């Protein structure tokens, strides 16, 4: 059955999406480094290609789609009830991965571990599932990770020309969308995590630049690569950060465009052209794994970091890495990657780090933030420390915590929606932060890793147990359906052209009303 014919109005409606969405989608180059004619030429070529092949193609070009919002811009109807056999336009068995699918120009790109030491990037025709190309890379010896993380954890991003893929042992790769050929490959230092969580950061593309924030426990860095060549445009070290996984987002506010990155204790706005820090807001917590969401120049965050505000990294180290539980850290108690740092931190050279040494061995003395939980809205833009000026509302929680440490919030309509372990959901008014409901069950008990996505007036919440709960978008909790995808699911789904792409641990399903 032919899917919906493209119409000018449909395309216009996509073009009219909020600026922040359009910009991160990079549908046309606007970089000032290229001459106008070149820009025009490329735009025409791209547009020509676009309309000639996929007139109606709607894209989802990175983790959580447009600017990591999780909201599908299209108005196409999306299925409510489906399964591994019902409403399945196509499906394919892949290797293990927790990375999300992305879609551009009618093509779906996914990653998978295709063999124990082989990393695959695969491209399918979005409408039919026809395989278009596959690239496999030898990974070499794989780093330690902690389940349910996968070695194939990073979600790729695309600008429609190339797919940008990160893998811990390979660095950043740019593959041609047409045939998967390597355009460039840039080494990136392997991240090191004290608790062996493993890599899981994902790139984004904006203005001909690939941004990649890798907050690890050793050498956190925000990178900007030239999308066409892979040349490093700039890199900004983030020494005050601990391991975390927030994806950068673009925020336009107060006449400036910021690359906004959440990390330990701080939300920071950077100049995307130079990597220079413009502002910071110090309302975050120790460990930040969820990503912020931007809407109309406001940045929304929902965080939870284990323990109370006094629980700095030191306490986690003493609890989990101090093997002999003597209240001191010996060198051998740390992963080898941290031994050099250990030696620097052992200021009295007595072979252990203890007391004050321990406070600052791995956590910046300037950023001794602890745990807790909060949900907040921060006005974008500004300069310097905006903590006192830009926080629109901030809900702190000690008991009955609605935010998850893993699942990013969803801002859709006038609501901010969060879900956490146990299938406990909460919804807040984005203007005031007042709750519509708190800790109400969505009838799917279990763990949650994937972040919710929305489209067509519905919210899709994927549980680790492989059930996709569909909620009605609105200020009241209304569970519309609970759909069984048959196996564990950690990846966040993608939505494009009325199709929901659900990446379970081993499969990719294209769910659509198109399916018979």
């Amino acid at each position, binding site marked *: 059955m032919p899917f919906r014919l493209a119409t000018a109005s449909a395309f216009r409606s996509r073009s009219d999406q909020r600026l922040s969405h359009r910009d991160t989608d990079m549908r046309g180059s606007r970089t000032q480094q290229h001459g106008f004619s070149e820009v025009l030429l490329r735009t025409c070529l791209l547009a020509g290609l676009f309309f000639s092949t996929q007139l109606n193609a709607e894209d989802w070009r990175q983790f959580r789609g447009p600017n990591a919002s999780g909201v599908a811009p299209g108005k196409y109807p999306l299925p409510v009830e489906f399964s591994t056999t019902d409403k399945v336009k196509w499906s394919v068995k892949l290797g293990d991965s927790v990375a999300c699918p992305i879609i551009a120009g009618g093509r779906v790109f996914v990653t998978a571990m295709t063999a124990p030491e082989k990393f695959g990037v695969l491209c399918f025709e979005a409408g039919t599932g026809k395989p278009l190309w596959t690239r496999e890379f030898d990974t070499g010896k794989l780093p*330690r990770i902690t*389940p*349910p993380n996968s070695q194939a954890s990073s979600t790729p991003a695309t600008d429609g020309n190339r797919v940008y893929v990160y893998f811990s042992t390979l660095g950043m790769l740019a593959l041609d969308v047409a045939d998967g050929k390597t355009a460039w490959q840039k080494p990136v230092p392997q991240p090191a995590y004290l*608790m*062996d969580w493993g890599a899981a950061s994902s790139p984004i593309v904006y203005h001909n630049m690939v941004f990649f924030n890798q907050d690890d426990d050793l050498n956190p860095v925000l990178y900007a690569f030239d999308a066409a060549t892979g040349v490093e445009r700039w890199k900004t070290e983030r020494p005050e950060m601990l391991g975390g996984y927030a994806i950068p987002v673009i925020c336009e506010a107060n006449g400036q465009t910021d690359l906004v990155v959440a990390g330990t204790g701080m939300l920071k706005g950077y100049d995307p052209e130079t990597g220079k820090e413009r502002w910071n807001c110090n309302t975050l917590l120790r460990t930040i794994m969820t990503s912020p969401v931007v809407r109309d120049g406001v940045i929304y965050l929902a965080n939870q970091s284990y323990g109370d505000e006094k629980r700095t990294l030191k306490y986690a180290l003493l*609890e*989990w*890495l*101090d*093997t*002999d*539980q003597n209240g001191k850290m010996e060198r*051998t*108690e740390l*992963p*080898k990657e941290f031994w050099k740092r250990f030696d620097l931190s052992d200021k009295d050279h007595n072979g252990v780090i203890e007391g004050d040494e321990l406070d600052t061995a791995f956590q910046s003395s300037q950023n001794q933030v602890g745990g807790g939980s909060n949900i907040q809205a921060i006005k974008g833009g500004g300069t310097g420390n905006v903590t006192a000026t830009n926080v629109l509302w901030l809900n702190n929680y000690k008991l009955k915590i609605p935010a998850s440490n893993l699942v990013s919030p969803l801002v859709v309509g006038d609501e901010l929606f969060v879900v956490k372990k*146990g299938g406990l959901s909460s919804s807040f008014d984005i203007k005031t932060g007042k709750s519509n409901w708190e800790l109400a*069950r969505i009838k*799917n*008990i*279990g*763990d949650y890793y994937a972040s919710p996505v929305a489209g067509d007036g519905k919210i899709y919440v994927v549980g*680790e*147990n*492989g*059930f996709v709960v569909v909620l009605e978008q609105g200020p009241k909790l209304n569970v519309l359906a609970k759909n*069984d995808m*048959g*196996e*564990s699911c950690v990846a966040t789904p993608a939505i494009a052209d009325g199709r929901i792409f659900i990446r379970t*641990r081993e499969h990719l399903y294209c769910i659509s009303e198109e399916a018979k």
Partner: protein
Amino acid sequence: MPSLFFKTVFPWQTLPASVPTLSRQLLLVTIGLLFATQAVAGPRVDVVVGPKATALERFAASEVAVQFKKLFDADVKVSEQVPAEAGSLILIGSPTTNPALQPLAATWPKLSDQGHLIRSVKLGDRKVLVAGGGSPVATLWAAYELGHHFGIRYALYGDMYPGEPVELKLDGIDILLEPTLRSRTWWTIGNSPIGPESWGQADQEQLLKQLAKLKFNRVVLWFDASQPYLDFEFKGVKKQTGVVWRGERFPVDGDTGGRTAFHGAKFFENPDFTNKKTYGERVAAATLRARGIIETCRKLGMSPGLGIEPLEFPREFASVLSGGDKEKDLQLLTVSPGTGQKIDDARLMELVQAQLQAYLKTYPNVDFISLTLPAPVGWANQAETAWKELDPQTRLGKSKTFENLTTILDSPSPAVVDAKVKMLKGKIASLAFFKRLLTTKDLGLVADGHTVKFEVNGIFPVFFPLLDKVLPPGVAARNSLDLNLLPATEKRSLMKGVPTERVASSLSLPLAHEVVGVLPQMSGSALKSLVDELRESGWNGFELNCSTIGEMDFNAYYLSRASFQSELNTQQALTMMLAPTLGEASAGRTWKAFEEIEQVTALIDKNDFFIGAPHKNMVMQYYQSSEPVPEWWGKAQELYFSAMNEMYRVNTRAREGNREFSLYLARRFEFAGEYLGCLMAVRRAGIAKSKGDTETQMAELEKAVESLNSALNALAAVARSNSDRGVIAVLNEYGYRPLKKELEAE
């Protein structure tokens, strides 16, 4: 490496002339180095077996090759002659099986059939290592001992290789091992969804390989009459009952806690029985599977046997039995004699013999049959007659009168005493029947001419001093002290009474059997105490009949080592097991975790031995009660979580491999803590229900569901056998779904 050499020549011969000379030279050197590096693999090791070596000795050589390749990346060559120029040289076998070892014949130590050695020696000018034993299987154990020497640790789930590189050093080794416990038996199959009856043939074989590495030497395939492992006919009655898990099915699709463990399957099942719908198909699958296990045992040098209950029959044989009050199992699949059946009924004896003969015909390649002595209470009224029947032959009455026997059983509860007395009387009647059965001429004669041996299990400790009188000569005993480890230890003095010089006896160690159920329990101190007593009392060995074997890796390792090293205690054994594989610091934390599990075990033994036993009401029974939550549940949960934390610490420390060991235990203990959390919430929901407090009842039911879901997910994340999957499937059926149903109904 000539072919490789030629390959290295071609690239630089074809370099274009435009490449500058210096660059060209550098490039050539680089390529040369590259290929030189590739050409030199690991060290060369030659393994030599005798030309007439047995299959087990050849297998031993191949196992050394596999292990050395993995340990040292060695280039291992197995041959029948000592090469003129060898790297490191290993000789497999003994002077009688390997001519290369003939020069050592004069100094070769006297080894028993289980004794084995690894020893560095000089043959002429050459340093060699010898791995050999007093029999082919002992030689295989020597090969495995060599791997152990270099840091490989054998667990039930697989091998753990050293975390750090090991130096290949074959000199200075001198290890000679003789067993102090000669019989090391593993029971498999059974009839529980949480036990090895769930394991497919491939999994069974993998486990048997690990058991061989752990030097277990006997395997019992344990069947019950409801299963499809036997097809037979008696006087026109044909067996028709043949089901797995007494016919129970365990769906795992839809909303199933921990379903990731099942990889999309809609039912939990033994893969060997998938789509086996008819009786005939199941019998064919079952016999194929059992024969496969027996064959694998043979290949690995282990002695296979069967375990059956001879007085239990499929229900269709009810018509053959006398009387109208036959005993039936819960699912009505099997029948046993009732009060109306005389113990000297010739037709019953004929039926029992026919069933036994059918087993031997179906599985002729076994060495022994272990017969379970039942305790038919229906036969209690024939006990006195039976005792008299046993007495004339054995002068049993002089050792203990019938009255003596039945009055020594005590319990705070008269009802329990009464039940125990009835069971004891049933056992006496059965013993008389067994004695006649086991003296039947040619009972164990198999068609190929060999005779299987018999042993009896399930004998009450009260009979221990009388074993040589109640059992016919040559029949061994497999004895049990208690269903759980700590109470068994308290009764260890009873072991001293067994006339071990006349009756070969082995002790059934109550570890992780079906009744222990889903909750991990262990006690290193109790285990050592029993093992010490086995030695002191001259017992032949031990038997393990485990269902959920997840936390049995260490117990199996300890038993394996302690069987050959009397002085070893459990903490030393744990360090020996984990120091090379997870690091010495990990061993200390693991010991702490195990001590906490030992405390839980004591709490369970003291308070509610059956708390983890799988049955349909295992969770919901606590919903029906308005009794307060027992305090010890909270303590036990605390201990499980504390042990979990310790194992997570071990896991963060064990960075270079073997995290499978630590993470498994961390999540297994997490499972247990969450499971107890579920029971506590269920009990609180029950209390609220009894008070009409619906809000609390619902909130607690939600907590119960969530805790059980977390428990199942924790186990699913590390499930590595169908015992684990069985636990998940059973708890879904007996706990998760009933709880959800209750929640949704309210």
